[in-house]
């Protein structure tokens, strides 16, 4: 198989992962206008919860493939507990305040969550790698890939499609779109704004946790895994345009393919590819590929 195809396949697999970890960030920013630095912590929370559920599942000697269905449960758990708790308890007090204070609030939240996880799960690494090998290996033109990689692509595609349908086709999704365009008029028209905010934030949190849960079998889960994720997710989302779902998909695809090209052609650059892509895009379009110009206040 030619290097080009290998780069393509690797790129799509990596892009799927990037999309999963970053789509929640762009959703929350798009509706709440808050950049959630604690997004990485929610990801880590999802990874720890997923690993804990997996370990419990395998202890009971059940059907092994069922473990893959346990992972969305972890995301749901994080979404319905941490989501409302954070939005109602903390973020709702920050709406309309200085953007910097909002940023610092989520940063403080991030610090708190990092230690909460250390206190709950300890500092020694968690391994929940069994699901990774369950799907066997797929040979594609002579190159062997773990089947799990393609599961990741499937989950990312499914998540993206479901999210698109939710926002564009469901009644609640249209309310969300109305709130994005003009929160004040939406309230005047009878939209329950706090409800839209809490549901959106919880959904974003669940998406971050979903990314973490499906990453859990691929890595050693240690404190601090959330930090790199927030930086990478921000880069991906910025490339596509903050607050745009299509932008997150486009950004993930571009970053994923460029990184896999770097891995195969220029390995020394691999570490910087994400930032190089981000810097390059921002130089040409300061607010990302699919975002409109911002209105500046006078």
């Amino acid at each position: 198989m030619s290097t080009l195809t290998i780069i393509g396949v690797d790129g799509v697999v990596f892009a799927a992962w990037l999309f999963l970890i970053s789509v929640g960030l762009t959703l929350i920013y798009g509706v709440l206008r808050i950049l959630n630095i604690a997004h990485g912590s929610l990801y880590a929370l999802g990874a720890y919860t997923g690993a804990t559920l997996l370990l419990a599942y395998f202890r009971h000697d059940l059907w092994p493939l069922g473990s893959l269905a346990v992972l969305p449960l972890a995301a749901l758990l994080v979404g319905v507990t941490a989501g409302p708790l954070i939005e109602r308890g903390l973020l709702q007090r920050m709406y309309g305040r200085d953007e910097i204070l909002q940023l610092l609030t989520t940063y403080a939240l991030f610090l708190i969550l990092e230690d909460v996880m250390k206190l709950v799960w300890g500092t020694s690494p968690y391994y929940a790698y069994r699901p990774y090998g369950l799907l066997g290996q797929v040979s594609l033109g002579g190159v062997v890939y773990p089947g799990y990689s393609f599961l990741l692509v499937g989950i990312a595609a499914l998540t993206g499609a479901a999210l698109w349908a939710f926002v564009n086709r469901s009644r609640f999704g249209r309310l969300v779109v109305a709130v994005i365009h003009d929160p004040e008029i939406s309230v005047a028209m009878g939209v329950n704004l706090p409800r839209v905010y809490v549901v959106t934030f919880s959904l974003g949190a669940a998406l971050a946790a979903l990314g973490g849960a499906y990453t859990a079998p691929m890595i050693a889960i240690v404190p601090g895994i959330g930090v790199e994720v927030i930086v990478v997710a921000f880069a991906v989302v910025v490339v596509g345009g903050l607050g745009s779902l299509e932008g997150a998909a486009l950004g993930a695809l571009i970053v994923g393919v460029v990184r896999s090209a770097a891995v195969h052609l220029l390995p020394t650059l691999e570490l910087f590819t994400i930032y190089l892509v981000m810097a390059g895009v921002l130089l040409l379009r300061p607010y990302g590929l699919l975002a409109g110009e911002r209105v500046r206040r006078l």
Partner: protein
Amino acid sequence: MIRLLVEGDARPATAGWALVAAGIGAALALGWVLPRWLTFVVTQGLAKGLAVMGVVLLMRAGLVSFGQGLYYAGGAYAVGFAARLVGLREATGHAALGVAAGVLLGALVGVVVARYRSIFFAMLTLAFSMVLYGVLIKAYTVTGGSDGMPIPLPTLLGLPVPADRAGAIVYDVTIGCVALAVYVIARYLASPLGFLMRAIRDNEVRVQYLGGSVRRAIYRTYVLAAGLAALGGVLGAFNVGHIDPDLAYWTTSGEFVFVTLIGGLEGVGAPLGGAVAYELVKSYAFKYAPYAWEMVVGIAMLVIIFLFPEGVWVSLARRRRRTSP
């Protein structure tokens, strides 16, 4: 002196140069009286305080830099490389080299980040510092990887520093550097550039209409902040005697932002005092609650954001001024 520290006002009439000289003299003498552990903590606090001052200067224009660790580590590693690769031992040479490295790095990165505001600025600075962290970890043949590298005791003006007096001497060097930095910052705050930064926070577009170059003001302040953080990194490297990539990690930059939040945005005393106090508290807290320290910091941050949005120090100073006639 009080006004210099609280409000950053460096006019000789108000500061009283004699008082300033006496203050510096007293601070220098303290290094030979205080116990070793305390001079270590104070030196560390002051070194970080320099980086904090850079964050403060940027925040006056409404910009949060989550990446000053980049320059703190840059200054420290400049010392490390100079000692390891070139064999430079002279402290003044190290300091000059470290600051030059920081300024150069800041001048390069600043070209990109000076275009951005609010969250973009914050996240881009964070991304740049994480890039340096990655480089320092990966290039272990030169940097020692995650183990970092030791910093040998330097010479001062050609004279060797005796190991048993090293703590006091590094402390005195730090006091000297901080005094110099405070003077530079005070001049900056009194300059049109310093005033422009406050105007940018109030209304950026109006500043442009009035003929001010917003990008140039932010760029220059960013480079100054980089130089300050690099100087802090150099002093921190001398003090600890060892450097590692964690200096560029987000936790280091996050500490700077946190201390800025405690101190508020006015004056030069608050960032320095805040940083020293922070180091003191941290050295105890680490002993008793190593896994809950960040949580304490996070909760303290939320309390400050909700109760003292202008910073604890400034709020208290205001209250005192209002009550006393």
